[in-house]
């Protein structure tokens, strides 16, 4: 074992001997080569052995580091890669069986097949009993426990416990075998029908099906309890089905015996899986049969309702819910009613006090039987029809359709018979015929293709995923799994064998998946693809020959339509086409795929260039516009993002459904209403939990907007971490996580994320972001901070600095760098306004005045807005005269034609009115405030700001009239929907004054927790525009405590 303490302890003198040797070595090597020998003679005069040792070591001093480095490349790296290659991948060049895998071995008359599961107590492989000719499951101890006597004993106990039961619903144990190496192996019945966990993951189960399964489980438990055995870890993953659909309880790995002696229960240690653990187990009380009754109750609820009764986001909340919360109501997503009697039984099984539960499995069986004799009888033997299907010869009906298009030849083979059998058996695959009416649509994962015969086609390995996924979306019958999830989920081994493909599809929650190959053929290629159902059965195959790679898009479209049509057994032209999702220009397509690759490799600026080329080649290429918008945002080119997102949105009707939803929601985030965007993204991730893009954008939405809704920006970490888990390659998300780690002062995480983001394998192209986070990291770790002088970098760094004292000081430095006279007017103005903000915050209005004087020459409008904004803050008490003069300037309609950012003229007028209203509030001029508010509320048309800003003014008005209830309501109306794009451009839209007044109003109403959240929102996030509020906010928060 690897622990230091288990090492044999060397003699006391060993460390000293080494230190002496090492320091002599070091000293000797520091000598010039000519005097080394003499030094050694002198130093080791009394110790010849030391002399010999040192001489022999020094002989290799120059070569050693080189040798070890070469050794790493020649030996260690290849060995490590071989040692960690996928256990079940059988790639050509790599025939080394990964260690610890039993696959391929023979143990007596059992052949070990692929691994099918792993738990703490063992690894389970599929196997074959060659003597009896049946499939079995073989369970071994995990590698690290082969030799552990307690673990072996435990495994034997498990086998004895299960085999003592002899119940049709407890997985049968056939034998325990010893391998040649002395490893233990339990031979069990093989459950070919998967586990309940897989069934649950695929969607709601029909109620009568649930009852059949429950009756079987209760019967299995009843046997165990009769024999005095408590399972203790009953959960869907531990419930298997035979090929015939009979349910079996698996894994008695933590079972204990009770009642064998005089003790009625066992009190050694508690075990289980948290969501299924009974309250008394959490409290550390001894387990008895009622623990299993509880777990079965949770499973029943989950099967009936489609979610767990106490599901919650964190373990702590879950534990609290299990201990204290009542059951969530029995509401199925499909609206079907859960029979009242059943709901009552489940409620009893989930009583917090175990005395109120059915006493054991036997009682549950009895209760179920009494409920409704006709529906709840124990399951009949499997229906004979299923058996017939299984026994039927695999007649392969081949429908070959050859369609000669201009340059495309297609042939399809459909294995109709297998398809039908499959659909009958595995009910969880939604038939495509009904998919049109079902929401969410069934999903399909396109796995990377195998490429043969041409390095120049290598880009198609992942390129085919990018191409086929939207083509499936376009059919309107299937929804493709986000290509990034798929690409990340697949290991890099050259061969994606069928078991692995199936496992990946399952992991991605896809009910169908597609594998295929591209083979070079002259100028063109042959593309083959197979559509499979989740259980691995072929549903359809198609092949397309494209005469030239230029025709790839139309070839892919045909391929997908044929695959889907084949499953429907309908002619291909009845399936909706890919339409204009992609592009007919091969050059645009190639540029798009290159851009995707750059994004994956975290080079957003390069991606921007490629996507720009793609839309230059084909200006109607909606998908490329969308990806351009994303890449532009990542590389901090917001103006480009604005243009691209509008363009993508305008063209989105050509996109398939998934992308339409994404683009729509992204448009809402950037240009429309973020509240709406959040709703849409939440819906998407709940329907498609593996959609990386949707998670990413949900995170971005929360990150950008939470503070404006009185919520913590840190909440965004949840979706971002989900992105990380789904797509480890995603480097965009590391930027956000770095930001969150920096704000939460998690140095270790920041450090690691930073190193990952800028690791040699990944982005090095964003000096601004690199400099920003280097500086942030230095500040947090209290190290000397590198200066940032380059304006683009300083702007990013300034925009991301937080509200800690060291950050605020840094803002001053960045602002000064931006304000340098050599910079462009726009940059200088930004720097000077930031300096003015700092001066105002430090209660030095004269200094702010000087800065404004300079900016006014560059941008009079922005200066005016900024002055008003500062005067509305609590930092400095401003004389009434100054307030009035600024308000007068605001009330004179601006004559500007230069639209800053994305603001229309009408929207600029709204901002003026809003600022004027704020100054009226400062002046105590309620009448003017009311008038301005009325005027703003009356604005109609495309002005996105009039509604939220007039609501905010209504809030301030209500505050000044002492009507806090109304104020809170008005502010809540104002919270909605200032698009992210505008917020980023116009400091006034940070709405600090509103948030502050909102918090004050809540405080006045005694709603302290909410007040705290809203005050807190001013310290959460980039500090620049909140600076004048920070001191007051800190005071207020202190008084709240």
């Amino acid at each position, binding site marked *: 074992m690897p622990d230091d303490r288990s090492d044999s302890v060397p003699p006391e003198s060993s460390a000293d001997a080494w230190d002496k040797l090492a320091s002599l070595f070091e000293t000797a*090597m520091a000598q010039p080569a000519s005097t080394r020998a003499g030094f050694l003679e002198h130093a080791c005069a009394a110790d010849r052995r030391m002399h010999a040792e040192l001489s022999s070591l020094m002989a290799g001093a120059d070569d050693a580091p080189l040798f070890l480095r070469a050794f790493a490349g*020649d*030996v260690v790296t290849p060995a490590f890669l071989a040692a960690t290659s996928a256990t079940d991948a059988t790639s050509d060049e790599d025939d080394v069986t990964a260690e610890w895998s039993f696959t391929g071995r023979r143990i007596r008359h059992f052949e070990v097949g692929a691994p099918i599961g792993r738990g703490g107590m063992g690894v389970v492989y599929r196997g074959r009993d060659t003597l009896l000719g049946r499939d079995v499951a073989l369970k071994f101890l995990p590698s690290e426990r082969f030799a552990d006597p307690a673990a072996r004993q435990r495994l034997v106990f498990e086998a004895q416990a299960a085999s003592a039961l002899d119940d049709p619903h407890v997985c049968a144990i056939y034998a325990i075998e010893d391998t040649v190496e002395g490893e233990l192996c339990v031979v069990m019945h093989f459950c070919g029908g998967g586990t309940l966990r897989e069934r649950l993951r695929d969607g709601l189960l029909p109620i009568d099906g649930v009852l059949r399964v429950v009756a079987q489980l209760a019967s299995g438990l009843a046997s165990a309890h009769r024999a005095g055995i408590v399972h203790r870890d009953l959960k869907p993953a531990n419930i298997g089905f035979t090929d015939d659909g009979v349910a079996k309880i698996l894994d008695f790995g933590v079972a204990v015996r009770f009642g064998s002696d005089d003790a009625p229960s066992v009190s050694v240690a508690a075990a*289980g899986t948290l969501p299924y653990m009974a309250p008394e187990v959490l409290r550390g009380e001894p387990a008895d049969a009622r623990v299993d009754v509880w777990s079965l109750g949770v499973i029943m609820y989950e099967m009936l309702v489609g979610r767990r009764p106490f599901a919650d986001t964190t373990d702590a909340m879950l534990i609290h819910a299990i201990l204290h919360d009542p059951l969530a109501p029995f509401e199925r997503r499909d609206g079907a009613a859960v029979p009242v009697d059943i709901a009552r039984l489940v409620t009893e099984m989930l009583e917090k006090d175990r005395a109120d539960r059915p006493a054991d499995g036997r009682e549950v069986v009895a209760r179920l039987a009494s409920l409704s004799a006709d529906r709840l009888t124990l399951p009949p033997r499997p229906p004979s029809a299923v058996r017939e299907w299984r026994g039927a010869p695999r007649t392969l009906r081949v429908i070959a359709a050859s369609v000669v298009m201009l340059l495309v030849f297609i042939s399809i083979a459909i294995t109709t018979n297998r398809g039908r059998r499959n659909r009958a058996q595995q009910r969880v695959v939604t038939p495509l015929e009904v998919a049109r009416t079902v929401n969410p649509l069934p999903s399909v994962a396109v796995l990377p293709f195998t490429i043969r015969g041409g390095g120049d086609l290598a880009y198609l390995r992942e390129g085919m995923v990018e191409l086929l996924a939207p083509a499936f979306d376009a059919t309107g019958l299937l929804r493709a799994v986000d290509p990034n999830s798929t690409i*990340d989920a697949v290991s890099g081994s050259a061969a994606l064998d069928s078991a692995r493909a199936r496992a990946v599809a399952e992991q991605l929650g896809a009910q169908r998946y597609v594998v295929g190959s591209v083979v070079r053929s002259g100028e063109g290629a042959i593309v083959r693809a197979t559509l499979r159902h989740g259980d691995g059965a072929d549903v359809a195959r198609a092949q397309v020959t494209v005469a030239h790679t230029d025709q790839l898009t139309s070839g892919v479209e045909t391929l997908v339509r044929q695959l889907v049509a084949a499953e429907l057994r309908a002619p291909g032209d009845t399936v909706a086409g890919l339409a204009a999702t992609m592009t007919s220009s091969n050059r645009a397509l190639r540029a798009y795929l290159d851009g995707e690759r750059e994004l994956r490799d975290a080079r957003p600026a390069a991606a921007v260039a490629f996507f720009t080329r793609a839309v230059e080649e084909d200006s109607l290429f909606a998908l490329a516009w969308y990806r351009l918008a994303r890449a532009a945002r990542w590389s901090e080119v917001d103006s480009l993002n604005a243009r691209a997102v509008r363009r993508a949105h305008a063209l989105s009707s050509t996109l398939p459904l998934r992308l339409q939803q994404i683009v729509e929601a992204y448009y809402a985030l950037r240009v429309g209403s973020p509240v709406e965007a959040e709703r849409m993204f939440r819906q998407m991730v709940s329907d498609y939990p593996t959609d990386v893009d949707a998670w990413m954008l949900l995170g971005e939405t929360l990150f950008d907007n939470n503070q404006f809704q009185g919520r913590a920006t840190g909440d965004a970490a949840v979706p971002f971490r989900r992105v990380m*888990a789904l797509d480890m390659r995603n480097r965009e998300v590391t930027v956000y996580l770095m930001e969150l780690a920096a704000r939460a002062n998690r140095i270790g995480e920041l450090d690691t994320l930073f190193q990952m983001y800028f690791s040699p394998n990944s982005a090095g192209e964003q000096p601004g972001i690199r400099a920003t986070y280097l500086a942030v990291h230095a500040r947090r770790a209290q190290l000397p901070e590198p200066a940032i002088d380059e304006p683009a970098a300083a702007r990013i760094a300034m925009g991301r600095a937080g509200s800690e004292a060291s950050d605020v000081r840094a803002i001053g430095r960045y602002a000064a760098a931006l304000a340098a006279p050599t910079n462009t007017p726009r940059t200088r103005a930004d720097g000077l306004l930031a300096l003015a903000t700092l001066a105002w915050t430090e209660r030095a209005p004269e200094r702010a005045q000087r800065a404004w004087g300079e900016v006014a020459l560059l941008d009079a409008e922005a200066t005016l807005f900024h002055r008003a904004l500062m005067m509305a803050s609590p930092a400095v008490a401003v004389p009434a005269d100054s307030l009035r003069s600024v308000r007068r300037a605001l009330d004179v309609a601006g004559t500007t034609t230069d639209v800053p950012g994305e603001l229309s003229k009408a929207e600029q007028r709204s901002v003026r009115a809003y600022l004027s209203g704020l100054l009226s509030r400062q002046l105590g001029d309620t009448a003017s405030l009311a008038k301005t508010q009325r005027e703003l509320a009356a604005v109609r048309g495309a002005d996105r700001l009039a509604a939220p800003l007039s609501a905010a003014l209504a809030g301030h008005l209500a505050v000044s009239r002492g009507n806090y209830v109304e104020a809170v309501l008005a502010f809540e109306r104002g919270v909605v929907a200032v698009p992210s794009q505008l917020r980023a451009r116009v400091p006034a839209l940070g709405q600090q004054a509103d948030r502050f007044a909102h918090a004050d109003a809540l405080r006045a109403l005694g709603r302290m927790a909410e007040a705290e959240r809203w005050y807190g929102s001013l310290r959460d996030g980039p500090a620049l525009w909140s600076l004048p509020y920070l001191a007051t906010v800190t005071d207020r928060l202190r008084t709240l405590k």
Partner: protein
Amino acid sequence: MQQIRSEQLRDGCRVRLPYGEQAGDRSDVQLSEILVTRIPDSDDAVTEMIRRWTDGDAVAGDRLFALIYDELRTIARRQRRRWHGDDTLNTTALVHELFLRMQGARALSVHDRAHFYALAARATRQILSNYARRTLTEKRGTGATTVALADAAAVPATEARGLEVERLWALELALQELQRLHPRPCRVVECRYFGGLSISDTALALNISEATVKRDWTVAQVWLYRQLRDQGLSDA
């Protein structure tokens, strides 16, 4: 009613509770070891395990090591794809990714993080030595206890892979020898060579000065080189 201690609840899937646990009762300790072996899915588990390990709880250390070992293999598989056939092993990146993926590790202090990295380096070495041992066993049908290196040069090219494994095993044997004679420099080699740890991280992890790390690293390299060279491997 029993008060629930947070670290017990946060141990992950399988939860170990204090009932029946008595000092000196070996069977209980073993049972707890068996029960809590799944990858924890809550934030504090890893932190807690590290803390217990550094406090001398060998069971926690073993468990953590088992987790790291498994996770490292998973990550290595994934990273391998990311390199697109560019077979350079970036151990530093590997260990960093491990750190991020292990739930709860991110909450570690800089000091504990170094310990964590050192453990990961150890796991890397273990993966390699397990692999070498296993491959050699398969090749010979018996345990690999001695490596005949004298005639290594005579091995035909088709068995190059086998030769590589033998060289790897030779390195492992040399490390075991170093570990037996001088444990500390062997740790340094583990951190630097297998974990890609920087000098300062290694110093943090092993609780020694950076100067010592540098010296140990230099001398241990030479020591290993001599050991391997004496076995006729250095010119391969």
